[in-house]
């Protein structure tokens, strides 16, 4: 399992995905191979996929620290902690100065698992932004 097998699979799905989404992915060159997965219609919020020795990490950026209304920061954290368990398959995290939602899968996962993970992550992302927009500037 590497990002190229995932990319080939998702790009090859076309209109026939199980989740009803169309995927458009391309690898980003760098120190670590990262796959940018765009879901058609939601290009503004891509999912980034990287494969490590024992897991597939799918990450979507929510917002930067600079977008957070600092007066309501603690409240935002509390909401994130409260939502962490109910939110299916994804969790909140912070990478550098960006808040993210992410999901981790075993490298033994099937392509259908990967596809489902990506679509749920994308749905979660939109819902989280919609719900938590009040904490932003």
């Amino acid at each position, binding site marked *: 399992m590497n990002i190229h097998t995932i990319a080939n699979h998702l790009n090859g799905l076309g209109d026939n995905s199980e989740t009803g989404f169309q995927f458009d992915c391309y690898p980003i060159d*760098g120190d670590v191979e990262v796959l940018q997965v765009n879901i058609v219609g939601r290009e503004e919020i891509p999912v980034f996929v990287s494969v490590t020795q024992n897991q597939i990490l799918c990450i979507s950026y929510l917002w930067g620290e600079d977008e957070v209304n600092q007066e309501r920061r603690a409240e935002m954290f509390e909401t994130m902690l409260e939502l962490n368990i109910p939110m299916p398959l994804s969790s909140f995290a912070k990478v550098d100065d960006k808040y993210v939602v992410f999901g981790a899968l075993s490298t033994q996962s099937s392509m259908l698992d990967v596809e489902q993970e990506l679509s749920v992550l994308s749905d979660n992302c939109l819902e989280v932004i919609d719900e938590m927009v009040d904490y932003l500037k």
Partner: protein
Amino acid sequence: MGILNKIMTAFRGGATEVGQTIVDANSTRIFEQEIRDAEKHLTKAKRELTDVMAKEMQASREVDRIKRAVAEHEGYATQALEKGNEALALEVAEKIAQLDSELAEQQTANDSFSAHATRLKELVRKTERQLTDYQRQLSMVKTTESVQKATATITDSFASSNSKLLNAKDSLERIKARQQQVDDRMKASEALADENSDSSLQAKLAEAGIGEQKADASAVLERLKNRKG
């Protein structure tokens, strides 16, 4: 200090600049070395355990054999006594005494092997636990590194393509607006399809003389006449 603590300390220390690794390559190497050492200890302990367990089995077989021999000789002694052959019985008794001391010796060896095996099994379990723990910690270090590098890669890619990640509000609004447009278009085409099927049905009904008819002069006259009457 646990690895989680190291990672957090590094983050809080401000090692969050792009391209700066939070866990230095050196500590990764130390971990990998610790894992290799633990694996070596484990292999050694397992080999030793196999040896000791084999010896334990041997000793246990020997104990059984001697026990059987003692029982056998006790039978001989009894039989000799029954036949009144005291001298023979004594000779057998001497043999039994010798067997007894052999038995005690083997039993001690057996107990010592058992104890050793128990200690080794505990050591193997402990080393295996430690190994799993090291591997978990290494995986945390590597994941942290990988996520950092991936973030740097993503940031670089956006910087070099002159595009940037939009802020969350704008992104959501654009996605929603696009979705609304798709929905509206779908509704419009549904409405259009309905209208088309509606009007064609009306035409068919009119042709068949069913439903609302077009007003004609004679019908109007008839209606007026009726009203007057």
